[in-house]
C-alpha cells in the first residue's frame, strides 16, 4: 500500500504519479453483482478468459489453469461468455 503525501508541499512536483501501478490497491471487486466461479474440471487451459479480462482478474496459474482475483474482478462476465467449454459460471453475489 503506497502512503501518498497529504500536504501540498510534499506532493511530487508537476502532479505526476511517481510510483507505478498504485491502482492495484483499489478494490474494484466492490463493483460486482455477479461473480465468476471456475469449474476446473471443464477448463481446457485455452486462456481466452485470461487474455480477454479487462481487469487482469483471471489469475493464470503455473499449469495454465485459471483462478479469479476477486479483489479486482468487476463481474463483467466476459470470461464466462468467451469460455468455449462453459467452465465459468456467473453466480449472484450475496449468498456467499
Amino acid at each position: 500500500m503506497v502512503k501518498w503525501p497529504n500536504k501540498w508541499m510534499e506532493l511530487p512536483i508537476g502532479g505526476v504519479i511517481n510510483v507505478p501501478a498504485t491502482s492495484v490497491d483499489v478494490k474494484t471487486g466492490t463493483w460486482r453483482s455477479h461473480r465468476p466461479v471456475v469449474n476446473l474440471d471443464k477448463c481446457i487451459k485455452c486462456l481466452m478468459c485470461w487474455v480477454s479480462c479487462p481487469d487482469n482478474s483471471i489469475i493464470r496459474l503455473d499449469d495454465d489453469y485459471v483462478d479469479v482475483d476477486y479483489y479486482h474482478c468487476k463481474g463483467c462476465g466476459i470470461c464466462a461468455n468467451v469460455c468455449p467449454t462453459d467452465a465459468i459460471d456467473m453466480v449472484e453475489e450475496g449468498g456467499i
Partner: protein
Amino acid sequence: MANFIRRLNEIPREELFASGHGLCAGCGIPPMVKIALKAVDGPKTVVNATGCLEVATTLYPNTAWRVPWVHNAFENAAATASGIEAALRALKRKRGWKDYKIIVFGGDGGTFDIGLQSLSGALERGHKFIYVCYDNEAYMNTGIQRSGATPIGAATTTSPAGRVIPGKPENKKNLLDIVLAHRVPYAATLNSAYPIDMWNKFAKASEYLDKGIGPIFFHYYSPCPVGWRMDSALSIEVARLAVQTRIWPLYEVEEGKIKINVMVRRPKPIEEYLKLQGRFRHLLKPENRHILEKIKEYVELNWNRLIRLSQLDSIY
C-alpha cells in the same frame, strides 16, 4: 527478434497494465492495451490522448501503468509523441541515452476528429511510433456523443433514434484510408476476439520500430457495453460478430500490400450483430428498414473494395 505466437499460452504472464483501474466492467480497451504492452518488446513509453483510457487509468494518485505514461491533452497525442521521439533521437545521438519504443493510444474522438490534424502531421513527418486508435464509435468519456467514427444509424446522445431522424445519418469515416494516404509502412485493423492476430501485429510493429521504420498505425475495434447499450459480458462476442458479419474486416497493409487476415466467406447476417446492441435496436423496426439496407450496402461495398484492393501488388 519478433516474438510471434501461435497459442495464447505463449503470452507472458507479467502485466504492465495493472488492475484497479476505473474502466467500466466489460470495457473493450484493456484486452488491447495488455497485449500491446507485452507484444511490443523492450523498454517503452505510452502517450495517451484524453479519453476513457486516460481518465480511468490515472485517477490521482492511482495509476494503472507500469511503463512511463504521458498525457498532454485531447487532440495532440501524436504531436506529443513526435516531440518525445525527436527528443529521444537527439538524446541518443548527443548523450548516449538508451532507446525505448513509443506507443500512442487515442480514442476515436481524439483520432478521427479533434486529433486528426496532429495525427496527419506526425504521420507525414514519419515519426517512429505506434499509434493505436481504440475506436468505440462515439465520445464515450463525455457521455456517448456521436463522432466521425459512429456508424450510420447508431443512436448516441447527439444522434438519438428520433422520430424524424433515426440515429446518425452519416456513414463512418474510413480512418485507415486517410492513414494510408500518408503511405505509412505498416497499418492494420485489430479486434479483441482475435488476440493472436492482434499480438502478432503488435509484434510485427515492434520489429518495424527495431529496424527504425515508422510510423505504424492500428485501428482497434473497442466494444463499449455502456455506450452501445449491451450486456458487459458481450464485449468479445460482439467484437467477433463484427468480423464475422464483415462489418470490421481484419486486414493489414504492409508497404501498400493489403492482406486480409480473416477471410469471411460466409458472413453472418448483420441483424445478429445489431440486435445485441441497444444503439442499433431501432433499426430492426420495419419503418427503419431503409437504413438497415444502407448499412448492408455499405458493408458489402467496403468488403468488395477491400477484396479488389487486396489483389493489387500495392495500393501505394
